[in-house]
């Protein structure tokens, strides 16, 4: 405790010292870090995995306050382009990097300043889980992780000191199903277009992610084997969209969804029994007492990964505070908080310290729960004896097939997706 207090005092005095500088900054615009009392970080992101508890814990530990600027994934990217000085730290996804890095709006992050860098999971740094290579189709983090220098706009294929984003959270996504309404085992992505579920299927209407789910389906139907699902040619996009257009015209889909809550409502109301879904949406359906399974499928998962970036203009004290925040984020408490929501923390060993052993066994090792499993908000997610969908970390992340992606033919893909919606 004593250490915290002194640190806070130190922050207070030093913020007072820079008060004049920040005051001068007022003339030009809002100072990024306020001098008045606690430093405030403007945190741009979707913040779907963040809650009040995080802010409170952060303030208690470090004296730093966070102000969330909540936007959707696509809007976060847009904000980095159009208003690069409207935030102090951004929580972005790796698949945005091929678009963002050439703009020069993000700082190359210095891994030497990250205490736990050596403990960052190998899924990010090497594309391996437990020593085995995992699928790297699409924008796998390792492809867009390293930069040639701190101000570089080019990716390096070899590990370097500077990275695009400091990894924070990631997961393996799959289809969600209502086992009580389907009443038989589901084991392949192809089931999404199975006529048996006519009028009861859904896919997400966010083209860059939806296309990946669509590709998983097309490949598992045996229609086509993509060299790289995450970077389709125009012909491959045409083929994929043709199959989905036909399914749509035949009435396969009850609805598309573009908002997290829509997917929860579709599933909870039983309008849809099989659909693309995100992990917290499954949790939301289950906490209503409705059975919902995040179904592992034999073709593997579509993974995504996010991390922290800083605006290119960050320097000096502002950079110090942001790095302190990131180091705190990776120091374990948040990691455990994320793991308990069904995501994975980028630094696993520190998260383990903050989890009970029965929680660790359930979430990470895929063992049957020996006690009721609670969400960070204290809602019951699973009863004693239940096993996590998909099992252990190694079973889930080890079975990743592809990653969320930005394609070279992105513009064409968006157009074709719109055509499918209009058909």
């Amino acid at each position, binding site marked *: 405790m004593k250490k915290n207090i002194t640190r806070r005092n130190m922050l207070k005095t030093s913020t007072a010292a820079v008060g004049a500088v920040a005051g001068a900054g007022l003339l030009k615009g809002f100072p990024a870090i306020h001098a008045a009392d606690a430093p405030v970080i403007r945190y741009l992101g979707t913040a779907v995995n963040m809650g009040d508890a995080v802010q409170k814990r952060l303030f208690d530990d470090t004296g730093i306050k966070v102000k969330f600027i909540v936007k*959707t994934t*696509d*809007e976060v*990217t*847009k904000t980095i*382009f159009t208003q690069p000085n409207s935030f102090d730290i951004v929580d972005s996804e790796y698949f945005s990097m*091929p*678009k*963002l890095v*050439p*703009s020069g709006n993000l700082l190359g992050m210095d891994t030497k300043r990250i205490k736990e860098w050596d403990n960052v999971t190998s899924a990010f740094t090497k594309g391996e889980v437990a020593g085995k290579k995992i699928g790297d189709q699409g924008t796998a983090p390792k492809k867009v992780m390293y930069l040639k220098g701190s101000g570089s706009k080019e990716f390096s294929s070899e590990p370097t000191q500077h990275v695009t984003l400091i990894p924070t959270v990631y997961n393996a996504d799959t289809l969600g199903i209502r086992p009580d309404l389907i009443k038989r085992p589901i084991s392949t992505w192809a089931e999404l277009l199975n006529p048996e579920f006519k*009028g009861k299927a859904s896919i997400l*209407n966010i*083209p*860059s992610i939806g296309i990946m789910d669509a590709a998983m389906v097309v490949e598992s139907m045996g229609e086509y084997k993509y060299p790289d699902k995450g970077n389709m040619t125009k012909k491959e996009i045409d083929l994929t969209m043709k199959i989905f257009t036909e399914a*749509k015209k035949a009435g396969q*889909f*009850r*609805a*598309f*969804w*573009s*908002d997290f*809550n*829509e997917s929860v*409502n579709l599933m909870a*109301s*039983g*309008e849809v029994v099989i659909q693309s879904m995100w992990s917290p949406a499954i949790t939301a359906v289950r906490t209503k007492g409705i059975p919902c399974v995040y179904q592992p499928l034999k073709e593997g998962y579509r993974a995504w990964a996010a991390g922290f970036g800083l605006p290119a203009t960050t320097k000096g004290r502002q950079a110090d505070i942001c790095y302190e925040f990131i180091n705190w984020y990776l120091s374990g408490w948040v990691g455990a908080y994320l793991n308990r929501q069904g995501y994975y923390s980028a630094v696993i060993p520190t998260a383990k310290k903050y989890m009970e052993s029965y929680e660790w066994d359930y979430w990470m090792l895929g063992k049957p729960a020996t006690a009721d499993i609670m969400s960070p908000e204290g809602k019951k997610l699973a009863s004693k004896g239940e096993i996590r969908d998909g099992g252990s970390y190694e079973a889930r992340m080890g079975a990743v097939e592809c990653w969320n992606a930005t394609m070279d033919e*992105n*513009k064409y893909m*968006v*157009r074709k*997706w*719109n*055509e499918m*919606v*209009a*058909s």
Partner: protein
Amino acid sequence: MPNLFKIKPSVGLLSLPYSLVFIFFFFIPLVLTFVISFWDYNEYSIIPDLILENYRYVFENCFSFENGMCVTFKTYLSTFMFCLITWFFTLIIGFFVAYFLAFYVNSLTWQIALFLLCTIPFWTSNVIRMISWIPLLGRNGLVNDFFLSTGLTSTPQEWLLYSGFSVVLAFVHLYTLFMIVPIFNSMMRIDKSIIEAAYDSGANGFQILWNIIIPLCKPGIVIGSIFVITVVMGDFITIGIMGGQQIPSIGKIIYVEMSYLQLPAAAANAVILLFLTLLIIWIMTKMIDIRKEL
């Protein structure tokens, strides 16, 4: 010190504040949108230029009908249909609600109270309102329960939700108020003695409605129609949620293009949408001179 109340401010001065707001927050952004619609762009920036590519892109494959109708035409056709149907129903319902409020409710208190009732659809957020349709129209919803229990149908009716029907229903439910207000306003201005005179001259109820009330309500009808049509033309949230994201709308196309930073393409689409909407309004104002009627 001059008495401020004796100075007669010029018209220009009085209209200055609103003009400034209008210029900075409407006119200039509009001009920028128009200019940017001729710019080039790549993945992460927009490049000043003077190209027609963005417009060509909107109408790509639109003039060869081998593969059926192009996305742009299909989308506009569907939007026009929604406009027409919504306009028709909001007009009929809105007119008679206004008629009731203006001629059958005599106390001002009751008129205000009933007016407030009409605003109930706006009391909750858009999202919650949309979600609330599921328990009513969904596969296991109240309407289907009723159909099944009375034996009207043997299977749940799926066209009730996530269909053109539910989109129109949501539009009518929301925007009828936009018709009621201006029509009611017009009706309140009608001199009651005209109606009495018509009645004394032997006109029946329908003749009074057709020959007196409707002609005198024209300005209200046109203003209400402009509200409804402009809102429906640009809508993408209602069509998106009630149509299950499976019905196209121009607004959605613009939204998607913007989120992928294809700003010039979005600008071109916006300019076309604006042009078409203005065209419709222009035609409507040709039918009646609002300025004169007001």
